[in-house]
């Protein structure tokens, strides 16, 4: 699935949240959206799944403008995990994941749909929690349930808004490894908004840095996420260390702390 975002603006009233954003994402690739709070990451992701349409510009999937795609067809192509999740206390884990299959279910649920739910849960190591109620889970486990729901949807494009914010470091790595495996294997693309720059460093093929709705950097992670760029966008000083495991970026102080 090839995603093209072209000159997208989004205004809420007179407030410009996105300003001329363009990027291209090819199948099997991961794009990380990086930027400070309020820089427009969630707004951009929501525009791609048509929760709200952009004020100007176009978004297209494999050459088709998403506004011309029937919502039901779009739902089969795009899977979305929101930043803030809502759930029902009375629902179990597998029922929540099963919702991802909504567009493939007319009324009764076939064995095949259930197998997909099982596969999604197993991919995230949550098979043993299938029968648990949502309110019995920890925040991190819940977040993984919502990721599993998107996996069960089996889309060609994943949109993840801070999918690892509630996860501990082990699960952050596990989830990202799983997602990279899935994108590589199935040729699915993925747009992921992250705060952890090292996750972007390690797992993204491309990084788009947003700053107040403007593009502050776009390209390969190592080329874009430099101490200079981070200083400009976040007002934070950082340095890059490199060892046999790869490159890591370490933020250490804000400008205010540095006395500027």
């Amino acid at each position, binding site marked *: 699935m090839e995603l093209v975002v072209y000159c997208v603006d989004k205004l809420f009233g007179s407030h410009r949240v996105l300003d001329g954003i363009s990027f291209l994402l090819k199948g099997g690739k991961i794009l990380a959206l990086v930027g400070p709070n309020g820089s427009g990451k969630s707004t951009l992701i929501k525009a791609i799944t048509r929760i709200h349409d952009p004020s100007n510009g176009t978004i297209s999937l494999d050459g088709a403008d998403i506004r011309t795609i029937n919502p039901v067809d779009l*739902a089969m192509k795009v899977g979305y995990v929101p930043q803030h999740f809502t759930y*029902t206390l009375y629902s179990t884990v597998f029922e929540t994941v099963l919702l*991802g299959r*909504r567009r493939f279910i007319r009324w009764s649920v076939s064995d095949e749909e259930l197998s997909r739910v099982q596969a999604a849960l*197993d991919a995230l190591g949550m098979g043993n929690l299938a029968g648990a109620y949502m309110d019995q889970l920890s925040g991190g486990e819940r977040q993984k349930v919502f990721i599993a729901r998107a996996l069960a949807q089996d889309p060609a494009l994943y949109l993840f808004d801070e999918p690892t914010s509630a996860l501990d470091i082990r699960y952050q790595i596990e989830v990202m490894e799983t997602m990279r495996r899935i994108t590589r294997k199935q040729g699915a693309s993925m747009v992921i908004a992250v705060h952890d720059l090292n996750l972007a460093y390690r797992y993204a093929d491309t990084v788009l840095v947003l700053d107040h709705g403007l593009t502050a950097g776009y390209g390969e992670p190592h080329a874009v996420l430099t101490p200079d760029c981070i200083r400009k966008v976040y007002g934070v000083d950082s340095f890059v260390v490199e060892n046999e495991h790869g490159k890591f970026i370490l933020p250490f102080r804000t400008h205010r702390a540095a006395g500027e």
Partner: protein
Amino acid sequence: MAQDTPASVPKTVTVHSLYRAGSSQRIALIVVLTAVVILTAVLSAGIGTVAITPGDTVLAIIHPSAGALNEFLMRNLPLGAPMVSDMLVAIPTPADAQAELIVMGFRLPRIFLAILTGASLAVAGVVMQGLLRNPLVSPFTLGLSSAASFGAAIAIVIGPAILGTLAIGIEDNAFIIVMAFLFGWLSMLLVYGISRARGTSQSTLILAGVVIGYLFQAGVMALKYLTNNDKLRDIVVWLMGGMWGASWNAVLILLPLCLVTFILLERMAWDLNVLAAGDDVAKNLGINVGRFRLTGLMISTFAASCCLAFTGIIGFIGLMAPHICRMFIGNDHRYLIPCSALMGASILLISDTAARTIMSPVEIPVGIIMYIIGGIFFLFLILRGSGRGLY
């Protein structure tokens, strides 16, 4: 991969077996509740000022129905259906000569009205709770009860005058029913109007409903204050709700309306399940959330206001029935809607039977019984303090 198989086989069973276990539990609840409704109906038809044995009650229902069926067969099948006909004719009349008149003429229509009203209010409740993602929403949250009360109060206070002036040949009681229904339905149109301007988020809709409710309540109070004692009493009794308006005509009007609305709402079950995951996820899964929410509210308000028009305000069923069912079977609306309908029907039928027998021959409004049961039920939920009981 071959090594993974033994470990993954029992897991594969898990989701499938969980789903099957859940489904059979849900179907079992439907079967049990259906049995409860039928049994309660038969028992309820037997008790009252004149007691009738269950056997006679059943005969009192079957005998005239079999007679009618026989007549129908004779008329429509030229050769008749001799075997069936013999069997139908062979059904004896009840031992108690009055039984047929009392059961068929008075109690059964009332029982049907209670079943239909209980089911509609419960279904409206469960659907509205799903649509607004709030388990404390009831069919009355969006102003329905105040609006319907206002309509009824207008009809009671100035209805005779209006009808006299316009020379419309309908009875005062029928006018009350029409006005209560129209105003109940109007409340939803007003909510819809507000949502056109301010969007369809849950908070907008609930606030709109509350505001509309207050305005109509003011109207009811004004009418109560301005009217004379007899009419004031009529208004108060209407507000308490009861099955006095029962008749076969009422049942024949409500039955098709309820069936159609239930089917329409049941068709929304999967999307209601998805909506529980939030508006954004629902949109991602291809649901037009705003339109879905308004359509669902329209249909469920319609179901509730149809029944309310005949019975007056009956509270708590729309809250209680869905709550109890969720505790048993979770949040799958495919089953939750029919279970709530049956649960609501049972609760109202039992309450109404109590209302007309506890102080027999004096009848108390079923609304009072519902408030007592509802109050105790929610007190129990609070004291039990389980996370899944109340949100």
